[in-house]
């Protein structure tokens, strides 16, 4: 995938510069306006809104951040993040089966997910090297495919073949996992480790401090990594594979490394996401995370070829604000919360579609 052409910002005089900044950030600007309209229309109490947004930021940011490395490596949006999410989910199933509880159980879940996502990330990377130029669609179809295997394992084999014995997570027949599993042991463990309540406008605002500390650590970690030798190598591969090859960088190996890292981070991110929700939709949770995390990143102004930590933070904030307000706005504006739901869905698909189209358009013109 070719790199995005760098716009000559310096040469243009003042007004044009504002204009080009507007054009470059058109997606977050439009989305911000949409959110603002939604917030005004929904007429929800402000502290409630803030509480919801903070919860959702803590819940989703890790996942969204895990998408950045493959973008830098020129592999586009990693739809294969779903594979990482599955690994996270499997490790939570193991923890729940053993009925471990507490913050250490959550930590164990995160640790178990790592070797799994290392292996499956490696395989994903191998596959994507076979499909250069169409990594995104390959990742997406791979996620569907893996979902089939996942269902085969946990719907038909869990119990008789896979030694999961806990009746609380198995279906009454003893074969297959339940559709929803209550995460008794790990629910909210990290969020509530240190939870600060601040009184605000008659309500209390809650901040899951440790979750945000973990996210901040990841942000610094990403920044550090992208400035190491290995990180620079990824950047070079992302700019131009042929040049990187000539410069002596192992292109295929770098790309596999990018996908492995993204998958591993995605696994941990999904563990955080699920622990914050508290229940696991055994056969659906992992499927939802991919498109929503990607839409969130894009809403922040990221493109297929460029994504930063700030894009992730801004995008998660905007996307989830819309998530909260759109059913309520639909209710007050059009008399139906369902319309708001479908509108939100339409927007999240359209955002990904339009961003992909814009990117393809730019590369086709360049």
């Amino acid at each position, binding site marked *: 995938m070719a790199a995005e052409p760098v716009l000559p910002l310096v040469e243009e005089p003042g007004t044009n510069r504002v204009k080009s900044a507007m054009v470059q950030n058109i997606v977050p600007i439009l989305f911000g306006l949409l959110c603002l309209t939604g917030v005004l229309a929904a007429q929800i109490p402000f502290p409630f809104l803030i509480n919801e947004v903070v919860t959702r930021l803590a819940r989703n940011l890790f996942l969204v951040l895990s998408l950045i490395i493959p973008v830098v490596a020129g592999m586009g949006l990693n739809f294969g993040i779903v594979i990482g999410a599955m690994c996270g989910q499997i490790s939570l199933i193991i923890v729940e089966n053993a009925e471990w509880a507490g913050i250490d159980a959550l930590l164990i879940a995160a640790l178990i997910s790592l070797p799994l996502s290392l292996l499956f990330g490696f395989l994903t990377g191998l596959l994507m090297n*076979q499909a250069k130029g169409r990594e995104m*669609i390959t990742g997406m179809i791979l996620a569907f495919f893996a979902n089939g295997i996942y269902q085969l394992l946990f719907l*038909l084999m869990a119990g008789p073949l896979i030694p999961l014995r806990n009746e609380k997570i198995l279906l009454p027949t003893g*074969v297959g996992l339940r559709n929803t599993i209550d995460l008794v042991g790990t629910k909210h463990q990290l969020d509530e480790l240190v939870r600060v309540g601040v009184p605000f406008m008659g309500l209390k605002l809650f901040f899951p401090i440790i979750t945000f500390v973990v996210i901040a650590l990841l942000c610094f970690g990403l920044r550090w990594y992208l400035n190491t030798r290995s990180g620079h190598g990824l950047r070079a591969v992302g700019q131009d594979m042929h040049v990187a090859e000539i410069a002596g960088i192992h292109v295929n190996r770098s790309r596999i490394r990018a996908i492995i890292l993204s998958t591993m981070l995605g696994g941990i991110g999904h563990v955080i996401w699920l622990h914050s929700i508290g229940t696991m939709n055994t056969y659906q949770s992992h499927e939802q995370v991919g498109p929503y995390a990607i839409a969130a990143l894009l809403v922040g102004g990221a493109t297929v070829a460029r994504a930063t930590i700030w894009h992730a933070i801004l995008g998660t904030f905007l996307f989830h604000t819309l998530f909260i307000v759109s059913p309520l706005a639909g209710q007050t504006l*059009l008399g139906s919360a369902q319309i708001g739901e479908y509108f939100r869905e*339409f927007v999240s698909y*359209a955002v990904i*579609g339009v961003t992909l189209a814009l990117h*393809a358009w730019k590369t086709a013109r360049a």
Partner: protein
Amino acid sequence: MTWAVDLIKGLGITRGIILLFLVGLWILATLATSLPLTGLFADCLIRTGMNGVLVLALVPAVRAGVGLNFGIPLGIVCGLFGMVTLMDMNIRGYSSLFGAMVLGGGIGALAGFLYARLLERVKGQEMMVGIYVGFAAVAGASIYWLVAPVKNPELVWPLGGAGLRNTLVLADYYSQYLDKLGAIPFGTGYIPTGLLAFWLGMCGLLALFLKTKMGTALTAAGANERFAEASGINVTRMRTIGVILSTVLGAIGIVIYSQSYGFVQLYKGPLLMAFPTVAALLIGGATVRNATITHVIIGTFLFQSVLTTSLPVVNEIVAKGGSEFGNIPEIARLIISNGIILYALTRKESA
């Protein structure tokens, strides 16, 4: 085992594997179950005809060089609109069936034109953009289903009195009209003559079109863009025609599908329909760059037969235990269809 390897090579690896799988299933059905084979085979034919036009709809796009048209839900949504509109006008029978095709196809042509304009701008990423065009079309249509000004109480959500139902029953309109047209009893089932005739007729029409001057130009544009341009073919126009044809056929395809199924599924119904459709074409031996009518016929039959046969066979053999085995065909569909698409995407010669 060399003869088996040779056989698979001759057939092409995807076709070969699925064919072996199907034959295995049939042998299993004969030896290990008491299922009536004739009924099973008749069901396979019905399912083939049901999905056939949708699979056929992919061909013009591949031929014109746009690749696998994952945006087929756009056409499907147009067809649904046609059906819903005529049902709301209380038109029943054949006039409703063909009216829905004409109206849906007409809107599909318009939508296809706009879709083609978009695809022209995103050359190289058509498939990825197509997936999201399809998703957005389904989500956008869902908003329309909720607010559509329908009056027919058979269509409107019983609670609240506004918005269309999730599933509309076609029994009083044109449920299985084509299936039953000239149907030939065959063991415990029947052969859906009308349905198959309509599908094969559509296949024939498309084959004829591809033989015309415009059809050959379209194929040339898809095969080698530069060469076609040099010989005076307007490549953009050909690609547009391919995409429009594909979308129109998608609209007609869902009408056929629904009349055979007996129900119209709105809202999220068509969201993931593109993937099994594409898989069927690939199983028939098509690639990202080449697809023929033969691929459609073989692929639809093989894929749908595997799906149709696996449920009763699996149920008969293992499912004394519980209901969860009902999921096997769904899981098989996920694994087979996406596995096949992955294989096509990662093949070197298709790049």
